[in-house]
């Protein structure tokens, strides 16, 4: 017995040694046997060597997160929508690089004079990836699935959040009915006019899914999506990679140009950048501004900039004194040096924010002047508010614990602002609880005096910034400042009902003036999110919302 057990043990150890020895030896072997040179080139060639040979028709993208789900209707996160955008088409789409709406699955559309009926003419001959026909019935099926709370195709756990927030929740739906007039004509009857209706229809979340596939795959549809888009879904290895193949029958002539797209999740920013430099990926999302100089020194790589379509801001908690006093809010507005922050923490890849929406968006009010950085004015305003020696109590400043495209490093930015405010006698303590707690606390508005947050536009409509973030209807919710102004509310509601874009634009300009005077926020920056790619990658048109087609991409 003794002998056997010691033999068995010897075998185990021996195996351990040989196995790990093997790993080690092989490694040493490649370095050693080839005298260094061949081995050194050998090793990467399996990876990046094949890369240079075959990347011509395969695109590998590296991004920080993974999709939550592949069915665009049940998600709101950008990472999920990025993939869905390749697999699905909506009736309309945003012209690449802009937030302007153009035809997609619908060739043309008509609006009735009262703004209550929209009639879309569908593109003929389009097929889903499963070979079934795209037609008016398919459109009706999808919209019914999203709007009917008792739909049998609303699977366990599903919620159609974008549908609810864009077209009104159950009970106050904007869309009354969707009708198939004939095979290629579909009609939307609205309960009330909705100005951003077409902007909304173009969102990736409203991509048209194959009804046959939804019926057959049921709850598994969110893992195996079927649409009409330029790429077909092949495989999803969670937290690792999503593989898409070319849709050879794509209805847009000559597209897509790539045979295959692989999207990998690489959470660490610097590891992702290393992978790009090492040739393991061709394109990466979210380049850290710190890595910009390395990128610019490397002729094999290029920088891609998204148009700024976001806003980062500090919000005052108006429920708390003394921030219910507009003078105090204005004073602190004067005491933030936005340009210095941009130079120090954004590597210049941002512009100072004046209004709560980005300048690239229509309706932006150019004539609003920012509260310039002027500590004397700040002090004077504080004195007017009754605080000549600065604020008596320490202010709790919530700084974002996570990195977002609009705010790569919230804590550092908060520290810079803290130092500036110190100069006017406002003492702050920075708190940065973990993200879920952060969102909870700021929504409750009990612990924070001032909080930092941001927003990226969804659909290219000012409503999606001003109403969503600052209207009194958004309390509790996205209006974490608890800012309620009746005049503003009237203006924003009127703008929602108005269908004439010029008139709407005027209303939004007016809204921005009201907000500027009330100063519920300190708008900080609009950032230019950065991507990095191999120098020979062409045809990638960065879009404001961050969802772009891979179909036009090719390698030179």
């Amino acid at each position: 017995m003794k002998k056997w057990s010691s033999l068995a043990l010897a075998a185990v150890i021996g195996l351990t040694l040989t196995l790990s020895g093997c790993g080690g030896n092989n490694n040493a072997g490649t370095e050693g046997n080839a005298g260094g040179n061949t081995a050194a080139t050998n090793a990467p060639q399996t990876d990046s060597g094949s890369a240079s040979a075959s990347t011509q028709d395969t695109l590998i993208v590296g991004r920080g997160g993974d999709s939550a789900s592949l069915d665009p209707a049940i998600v709101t996160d950008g990472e999920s929508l990025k993939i869905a955008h390749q697999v699905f088409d909506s009736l309309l789409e945003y012209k690449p690089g802009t937030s302007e709406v153009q035809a997609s699955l619908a060739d043309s559309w008509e609006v009735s004079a009262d703004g209550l009926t929209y009639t879309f003419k569908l593109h003929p001959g389009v097929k889903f990836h499963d070979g079934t026909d795209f037609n008016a019935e398919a459109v009706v099926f999808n919209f019914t699935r999203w709007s009917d709370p008792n739909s049998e195709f609303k699977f366990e756990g599903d919620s159609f959040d974008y549908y609810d927030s864009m077209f009104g929740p159950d009970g106050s739906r904007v869309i009354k009915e969707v009708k198939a007039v004939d095979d290629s004509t579909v009609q939307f009857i609205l309960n009330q006019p909705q100005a951003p209706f077409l902007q909304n229809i173009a969102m990736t979340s409203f991509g048209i899914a194959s009804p046959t596939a939804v019926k057959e795959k049921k709850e598994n549809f969110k893992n195996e999506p079927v649409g009409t888009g330029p790429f077909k879904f092949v495989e999803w290895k969670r937290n690792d990679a999503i593989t898409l193949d070319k849709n050879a029958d794509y209805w847009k002539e000559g597209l897509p140009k790539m045979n295959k797209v692989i999207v990998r999740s690489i959470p660490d920013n610097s590891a992702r950048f290393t992978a790009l430099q090492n040739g393991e990926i061709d394109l990466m999302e979210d380049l850290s501004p710190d890595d910009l100089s390395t990128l610019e020194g490397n002729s094999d790589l290029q920088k891609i900039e998204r148009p700024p379509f976001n806003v980062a801001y500090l919000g005052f908690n108006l429920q708390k004194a003394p921030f219910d006093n507009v003078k105090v809010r204005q004073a602190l507005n004067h005491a933030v040096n936005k340009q210095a922050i941009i130079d120090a923490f954004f590597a210049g890849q941002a512009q100072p924010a004046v209004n709560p929406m980005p300048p690239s968006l229509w309706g932006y009010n150019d004539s609003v002047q920012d509260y310039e950085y002027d500590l004397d004015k700040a002090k004077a305003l504080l004195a007017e508010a009754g605080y000549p020696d600065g604020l008596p109590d320490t202010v709790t400043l919530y700084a974002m614990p996570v990195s977002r495209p609009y705010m790569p490093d919230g804590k550092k930015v908060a520290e810079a602002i803290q130092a500036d405010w110190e100069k006017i006698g406002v003492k702050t303590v920075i708190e940065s609880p973990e993200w879920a707690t952060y969102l909870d606390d700021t929504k409750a508005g009990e612990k924070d005096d001032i909080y930092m947050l941001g927003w990226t536009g969804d659909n290219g409509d000012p409503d999606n910034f001003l109403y969503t973030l600052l209207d009194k209807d958004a309390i509790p919710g996205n209006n974490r400042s608890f800012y309620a102004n009746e005049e503003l509310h009237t203006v924003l509601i009127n703008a929602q009902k108005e269908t004439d874009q010029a008139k709407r634009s005027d209303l939004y300009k007016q809204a921005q003036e009201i907000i500027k005077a009330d100063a519920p926020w300190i708008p900080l920056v609009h950032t230019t999110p950065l991507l990095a790619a191999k120098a020979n990658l062409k045809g990638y048109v960065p879009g404001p919302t961050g969802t772009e087609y891979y179909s036009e991409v090719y390698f030179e």
Partner: protein
Amino acid sequence: MNSYLIKRVMVLIPVLIGMTIIVFSIIHAIPGDPAETILGQKATEQSKQALREQLGLDKPWLQQYFNYMGDLLQGDLGTSIRTKTPIAKEIMPYLAATLELTAAAMLFATFVGVNAGILSAWKQNSWFDYTSMIIALIGVSMPIFWLGLMEQMIFALKLHWLPSIGRMDQRDPVESITNLYVIDTIIAGRWDQLWTVIKHLILPSIALGTIPMAIIARMTRSSMLEVMNSDYIRTAKAKGLSQFLVVYKHALKNSLIPVLTVVGLQTGALLGGAVLTETIFAWPGVGRYIFEAISSRDYPVIQTGILIIAFIFVVINLLVDLLYSAIDPRIQYK
């Protein structure tokens, strides 16, 4: 032996029930609302409320706990709130990825650690002893994050010897059967792919294995030193046995028990997922899965994930205990 085994397995039940209570209480004690974090800023209040109701978050804690246990006993591991996919289905590939990485890391750690410990004890107070113990000390206190990034910088970026991230070359994907790619490539007979998979394993397993390696080395050394001073070793030496045989045959066997304990504990710890290593090397393992679930307050995933890991941990401990008697016949279980 059998009755011992049965007893040990029975003890697992209260341990696991205890785990569910602890995890459940911690999850509900930390602030943060899953409806808010998962649905995000873009969802309406109405759908957030619907989610809370669906998750039963509006019910009293005790009721929530019993509902959860009820589902668990019926074999329902729950559904992820964030991905809306059953956890039992989702977690398997993650576990496999972690298992593969852990195995590689522990092979590295055990091989290097045990041998360094033996040699240090054998050549006590030599330069080798001093150097390896200093390295072990550095190893124990090494920030994995830094080590991983340095490895990538040197071996991927500068030398181009090894890939920096992932488990395989995505341009030539491995056909996954078991999700353990080393085994999958062997089954498929794709030796070129096996080599690629091994190359992907080297950097993360060194990063992950460094701390266990250092602990194992120190443990082996001290345990060996104790044994080397005992009478039977003097006898063996007096018999004129070769030094090598004395050390690797006679001394090693008796010093292995504490080492085995450490190896077992470390394996369990690594299987629990190595969030940092998995993050830096973009390794789709269970550590990142649970970490992301914690960030988004995906309660079912946190609960089930931790429970599964706790289960694996206790099973490994049991195996280690059983191995003791194989190594040392004085230890017998009745």
